[in-house]
């Protein structure tokens, strides 16, 4: 009888020996001694333990949530179940690494547009660039603070990209539109006025025979590439660096006769042919490599100099967004006409099956972006109106941002800790305070 009782007690309160480790800086460090904790603890329980340990060392410690990694995987189940599912022995001392949990801190007031927000770029921390269905591009300094309006397209803007943000105060951006052209713009970020200033493009790039779906700039900013419904990818020279020398003169000229400023017309430097359907997304991470995703169900990697595709990943679904990043800046994330976000590792030979598949969305995926610094985090936007933040180490989304009322058409990171997104509800939403590192 007595032994039975004991055994029951054992089952109820199974304990595991754990040791908490972290790569975080000293205020977050806990003593490295191993402790026994109940096996049925969840993430919240673990977080409470770590917080109380920290509090023991520092009286003024304020509790904050943590996330826990065992063998490089995020704990999303009660500890016991997690160990069982992963086949990890609970006999020896378990090392649990903790990181700061990703939490949504603050949601800014949405910045209203006149029409659907179809493109957004947050690669420059000083501003946010958006493209809209009212044919205008906009530059936002912060939520609700529009500084520039890019005027000139005759069709809805499909894609925007910051070309060159190296200059201290002058930046160049590119927009792609349904009017089959791309336009290059230049503006001064420091310029300040209460009314948003209207800018005209300094260069119009003509050459596509159908609406231009996507634009991406090379890292140095001297070239941009664009994908279009005419199934081609065009490469363009931006001439930004040429004019950078007489930046001042341009500035002067711009001030003097803004309207009469000559609009240069550019022609495509070269064309990459190979896709059989609309090229919906392009990405140019390295000078010699362009990635493209297309409605013909494929992701291609192009050699810019040779003008040929080096590899071809077949997906089976029309793709509408693509981004490359993560570990070694080599993982290809792409989404399209189904709710699954797929991630391929092209370094793995002999397989075209996606390495990761995230399927929490319920409709088409319209955008996916890797975090520029983190190896594990990426963002996805879907027509179901949700943004999801993913960590490669778990199959569940870290966070779901539900700020849009209708389809989300575009999303990006901003300043490393904010998520910006635009959608059919004509809003640009900024969710800040996410520390993923």
């Amino acid at each position, binding site marked *: 009888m007595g032994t039975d009782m004991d055994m029951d007690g054992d089952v109820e309160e199974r304990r595991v020996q754990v040791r908490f480790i972290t790569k975080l800086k000293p205020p977050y460090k806990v003593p490295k001694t191993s402790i026994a904790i109940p096996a049925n603890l969840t993430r919240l329980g673990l977080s409470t333990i770590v917080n109380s340990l920290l509090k023991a060392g520092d009286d003024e410690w304020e509790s904050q949530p943590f996330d826990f990694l065992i063998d490089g995987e995020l704990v999303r189940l009660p500890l016991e179940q997690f160990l069982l599912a992963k086949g990890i022995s609970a006999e020896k001392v378990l090392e649990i690494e903790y990181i700061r949990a990703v939490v949504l801190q603050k949601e800014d007031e949405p910045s209203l547009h006149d029409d*659907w927000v*179809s493109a957004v770029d947050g690669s420059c921390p000083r501003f946010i660039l958006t493209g809209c*269905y009212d044919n205008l591009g906009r530059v936002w300094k912060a939520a609700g603070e529009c500084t520039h309006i890019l005027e000139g397209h005759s069709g*809805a803007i499909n894609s925007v990209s910051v070309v060159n943000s190296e200059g201290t105060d002058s930046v160049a951006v590119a927009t792609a539109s349904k*009017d*089959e052209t791309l336009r290059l713009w230049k503006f001064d970020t420091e310029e300040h006025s209460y009314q948003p200033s209207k800018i005209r493009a300094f260069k119009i790039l003509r050459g596509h*025979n*159908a*609406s231009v779906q996507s634009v991406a700039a090379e890292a140095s900013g001297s070239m941009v590439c664009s994908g279009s*419904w005419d199934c081609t990818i065009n490469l363009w020279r931006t001439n930004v660096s040429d004019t950078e020398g007489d930046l001042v003169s341009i500035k002067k000229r711009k001030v003097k006769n803004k309207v009469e400023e000559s609009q240069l017309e550019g022609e495509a430097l070269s064309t990459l042919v190979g896709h059989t*359907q*609309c090229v919906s997304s392009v990405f140019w991470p390295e000078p010699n490599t362009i990635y493209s995703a297309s*409605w013909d169900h494929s992701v291609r990697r192009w050699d810019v100099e040779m003008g040929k595709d080096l590899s071809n990943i077949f997906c*089976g*679904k*029309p793709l*509408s967004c693509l981004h490359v990043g993560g570990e070694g800046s080599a993982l290809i994330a792409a989404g399209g*006409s*189904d*709710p699954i976000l797929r991630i391929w590792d092209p370094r793995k030979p002999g397989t075209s099956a996606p390495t990761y598949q995230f399927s929490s969305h319920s*409709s*088409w995926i319209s955008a996916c972006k890797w975090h520029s610094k983190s190896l594990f985090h990426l963002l996805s936007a879907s*027509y179901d109106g949700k943004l999801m933040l993913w960590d490669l180490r778990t199959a569940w989304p870290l966070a779901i941002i539900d700020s849009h009322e209708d*389809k989300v*058409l575009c999303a990006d990171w901003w300043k490393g800790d904010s998520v910006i997104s635009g959608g*059919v509800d004509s809003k640009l939403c900024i969710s800040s305070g996410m520390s993923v590192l």
Partner: protein
Amino acid sequence: MGASKKESVEVDKKKNSKKTQPTKKEKHNTEESVLAQKQEDAATDYKELSADDDSEDYKSVGESEAGDGESSGDEGNHKSGSSEGLAIDGQSEDSEPDQGAEESDSSEDEVAPRNTVGDVPLEWYKDEKHIGYDIAGKKIKKKERQDKLDSFLANVDDSKNWLLSPTRPSYLLYLFFSQYLELSYSIVPISVALCEDHELTERGVKSGLVRGMNSGVYFEMSHIGMTYLVLRPSLGDTTFNGSKSRRKIYDEYNDEEVELTKEETKLVRRMLKGKTPHADFDPYAVLGLVRAIRKGFIKFDKPKEEPRFYMLWGDDASSSEKTGHLSYIPAPKPNMPGHEESYNPSLEYIPTQEEINSYQLMDEEDRPKFIPKRFTSLRSIPAYENAVKDSFERCLDLYLCPRVRKKRINIDPESLKPKLPSRKDLRPYPATCYLEYRGHKGAVMSISAEASGQWIASGSSDGTVRLWEVETCRCIKVWEFGEVVQYVAWNPLPELPILAVTVGQDVFLLNSGLGNEEIQRKVKELLHVETPTAPEDSGNKVSGWSWRQDDEHEGIRLRHFKSVYSVEWHRKGDYFSTVMPADILFFHYHLIAVLFLALESIVLCIVMKSIIFHPTRSIFFVSTKKNVRVYDLLKQKLIKKLETGLREVSSISIHPAGDNIIVGSRDGKLCWFDMDLSSKPYKVLKCHPKDITNVAFHRSYPLFASCSDDCTAYVFHGTVYSDLNQNPLIVPLEILRGHASSDGRGVLDCKFHPRQPWLFTAGADSLIKLYCH
């Protein structure tokens, strides 16, 4: 000594009687002989059935065939019981003369007798005195005959007789045969190995069993003097009756008396049976065997056990089926009473009063015939009022109801299904709806996808035509007409983004506004017509339409004299045709305005439903109410007529290769025509419960779809092989649901995306849905 003597006497007598038989023969009534013969047949049959001759009655019946006398009377047989059938000699002798006479008849009779015993197993007569019935219904009696061993054992009992002479009778016989008569015979050594004592073996071999000695020879032998010697000891033995002493053998060498049990008698007899047919057994041989059996040297299989119980009311059908003649079909059995027929059934069987009342409302046939009731005791059960009626009905059923044996084939219904490839292997096909195009305020009548697949146009009953971006569901443009838009169609050329729209009596050619300036300039040029049509208009009244510039919608307006049903472009984008519910079909060359092909001469008062162009050849298809006619455009004549067999054709679509067309009908059927095969449908798919509103082929994927007023769209796989010997493969893939019914109408149009395996459906619920793979 005495035993064998007695036996030979018996045999003697019988042979005598046999010899007299031929004279008696005529006198005997033939009937009996017939019966006897018959009885033999039956008996041999039975012998075959039962491998062991354990049941002695049957064996004896069978042996009567041999006709070697010694048949015993009925009484004798049955007194000795079924176990052994040992007859008492005296008794058997009494009845011998008749018996022998009867038997003799049987052997020589030429008439083939018939057993009228019926088709029953002979086992049933096992315990009876008769074996069947003759044609007059009299019992055919069993003929028994006694076994040699039995009679021998009966005679051998008195061992003192044996001792009278140092030479035992069979030994003397042996000497006599071999030395005095010099007859050829063989000595059969029996079970030498089994006899453990040498003396016995030696004797066994010496005495042997005499073979080749049939009773006839024996008979003669006894006549020439040996009788005395051999038979004398048994002369006084006739008074023995069935006691144990009969089975005793005295072994003079060991000075002991061995008594055989019943079982042993049987076994020994079985072992010696083949060796000496109807001849004597040597007692020492028997003794050897008995000893061997007792010591366990000889082992026997257990006799097969006959099932003791059998179904008394077993299925009659099984026995009747064997007969070759007129097959008897047994009447179905009445149902056995169940628990509810019990006089005191459980409570759950008793219906409540409400239930009983509800029976009254039921139809006479459905009403239960019996209502369970409870009685405290059997005594209190009243008479069953329907007893006479029920049994009368049963009788009617039994003899008046014609019965036919129905051959039911057991086939697994699964195996009848055609072998179709798995749906998984036929991917991709549209399955899930992710996007909806919202904006129309009335039923969407028609949709059309632009050649590149970036745009779709839709016409609605709210009087608008809308242009949508496929990817984002964005409505790019709206044209207002103020009248129900019946049909929209894109020009198939990507460089000419022109929409043809039918509104009432008008056909509009609209500039979609897509494309760059160059394209726009070209389109505007095309869509510009001078308007000197005022005089021409009146002149053209006969031809029935007029071209006019329409500034409001930036296009051309073609006014017909009747409302236009649909408009269809030629693949090259140069021609289009319009269909009016009248009898006339117009072709328009939309640039030069007048290429007029009045098909009145060809199409005689046929109400046309829709029309399509052949994708590669100058052929077009016109669907009338019931048929599809195929015309050659150049020769302007009818090539073929496809008979649909449908009530009313509603829609038609052609496979991109041009040799197959599908036709949807108002009774929910979809016909697939293989033009090379026949003018009759290759397959008719009856899938929709309501009208099919439209059918569509995919341009590049092997898919086709039908949509219906039942708010669903069906997607099928349809591969057409280039090999002419192979018929098209049609596999139903998916039922697409999601639209809501509005005013009894469901999905009004379906079109495939030109490049993706996606399906657009236009619903009466003012939605357009895109189903993706």
